[in-house]
């Protein structure tokens, strides 16, 4: 079991409100990702759940029990740090088994559990090495091993993959997702990478300046963002925002259209524009098109379009994918 509830949690450092007021329910066995730009308070929120920071006001509950004043050691959660935070003086075996040792588990029991965790994570050949003798990916696995061996109520991940190279990151992303499903343990995962958020999460919390902007499934966030911030943050390349007469026509202060929802033609309907930059990825083509009166728009076409810089094109947004926002940036439904 591992449901986590935040009730009007507030965190201030001095007179600086990092988290003004956050309430959230994380269901048992779900994978929840906190995402947002740097400095949005996502790591602070995670540390409040962990107990590494004290809340200024509000309540943190785990499985319905108020743990606001319970030290991190007694909350039954485990955490994977961005820096891995392995104990450099202990072997891999010692690192993974440390939590069990602290809990007073018997030696043979520790060995059994450590070896089981190591076999899941392909760490068996490295059990007697020190962390400094391991590669980045292996260190990451040890950090994860340390987290799973204690069979916690929930895993807390603080940007665990940001120190890995791109290829390894994709691989570890999959492994972490699989592991969480197999172990059926609640996971809270912090990242600034919206691709990680979209691919791993059951539910995403988008944070901005310490506020929870939206809490929903990845597709909910993609299809029905509640405001301009979420709309701009989720999706890559970023959503185009258009103000002025074109927006007025649609009855909004601002309209948003995702690059993949713009049909690019050479002579069809739509806005006239000139391609300023064309990026050819093979699988996709990204076009940055200068449209007079509107500005620079990003369009995405599947496959190779054969359109190049300085070409004249027509851009047609698909009407059913148009997002409309009022003056305050809230979505108009």
């Amino acid at each position, binding site marked *: 079991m591992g449901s986590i509830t935040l009730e009007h949690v507030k965190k201030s450092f001095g007179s600086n409100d990092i988290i003004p007021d956050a309430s959230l329910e994380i269901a048992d066995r779900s994978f929840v990702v906190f995402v947002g730009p740097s400095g949005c308070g996502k790591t602070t929120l995670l540390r409040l759940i*962990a107990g*590494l920071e004290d809340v200024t006001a509000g309540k943190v509950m785990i499985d319905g029990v108020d743990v606001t004043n319970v*030290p*991190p*050691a*007694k909350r039954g*959660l*485990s*955490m994977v*740090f*961005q*820096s891995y*935070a*392995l*104990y*450099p*003086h202990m072997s891999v075996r010692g690192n993974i088994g*440390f*939590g069990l040792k*602290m*809990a007073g588990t018997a030696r043979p029991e520790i060995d059994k559990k450590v070896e089981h965790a190591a076999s899941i994570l392909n760490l068996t050949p490295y059990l007697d090495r020190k962390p400094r003798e391991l590669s980045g990916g292996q260190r990451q696995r040890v950090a994860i091993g*340390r987290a799973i061996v*204690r069979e916690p109520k929930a895993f*807390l991940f603080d940007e665990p993959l940001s120190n890995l190279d791109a290829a390894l990151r994709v691989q570890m992303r999959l492994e972490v997702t699989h592991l969480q499903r197999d172990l059926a343990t609640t996971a809270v995962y912090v990242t600034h990478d919206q691709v990680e958020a979209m691919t791993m999460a059951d539910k995403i919390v988008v944070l901005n300046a310490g506020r929870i902007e939206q809490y929903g499934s990845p597709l909910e966030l993609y299809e029905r963002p509640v405001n301009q911030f979420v709309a701009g943050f989720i999706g890559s390349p970023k959503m185009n925002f258009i103000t002025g007469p074109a927006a007025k026509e649609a009855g909004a202060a601002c309209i948003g259209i995702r690059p993949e929802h713009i049909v690019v033609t050479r002579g069809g309907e739509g806005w006239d524009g000139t391609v300023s930059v064309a990026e050819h990825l093979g699988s996709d083509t990204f076009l940055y098109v200068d449209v007079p009166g509107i500005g620079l728009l990003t369009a995405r076409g599947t496959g190779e379009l054969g359109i190049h810089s300085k070409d004249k094109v027509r851009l047609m947004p698909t009407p059913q994918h148009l997002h409309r926002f009022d003056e305050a940036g809230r979505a108009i439904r």
Partner: protein
Amino acid sequence: MARRTTPAKIATNTAAAWLVGFIIFFPILWMIETSFKTELQAFSTPPVFLFFHWTTENYGEVQSRSNYFLHAANSIITAGGSTLIALVIAIPAAWAMAFAPSKRTKDTLLWMLSTKMMPPVGVLVPIYLLYRDTGLLDSRIGLIIVLGLGNLPIVVWMLFTYFKEIPKDILEAARMDGATIGKELLFVLTPMSLPGIASTLLLNVILAWNEAFWTLNLSSSHAAPLTAFIASFSAPEGLFWAKLSAASTMAIAPILVLGWFSQKQLVRGLTFGAVK
């Protein structure tokens, strides 16, 4: 751009280094040499150097007049004990300052260091009276307390700078792993900063070993360490240079050996953790 090193330059540098080393070491050499002279030779002008009749009678004389081993034992106990006390207090204190600092932590650190700038003689009378009334005069435990507390600021400072280098994440990881503060200190912080703690320990032992002001004033015979043993040979009847030298040589021998074997840690300790 790296400076060019020619063989000639290396030779000059080496020679200069040896010369400086010799000048620094000369007083100690002179002392050791004097300890093997007769009292008359020790006085003679012009002074004799190396070519004289070497004798070990001073050492026998010194041991028969005074009990070297008692004083040496006192030195070991007071230096070791005071270091232990200082470490036991300083490790948690430095932990708190490095990992849970408050607004006043910096001031506290500076204040602690400032106590080392006060001349000890300023508090001699109150401490002497305190020791007299509590029966701590001329007791090993009394010396351990005064030396331990006297060196505490330096020990806290040194450990603080070492602890500062340890990433906070690792301690937090231990906390998440269920370690209480005591276990976190014992199983994670202490083993990780062992080199730092070792050099702090060594430096403190040396400081306590060489400390003369408090040991001379607060002990006379029973608890007197080697500093008092040396001082006892500058008698009112006159200075006995050769015997004084023999006593001094015996007093510094243990710490010299210790220092020789732990040079590396000591250098690290003296740079206050600035060198990684």
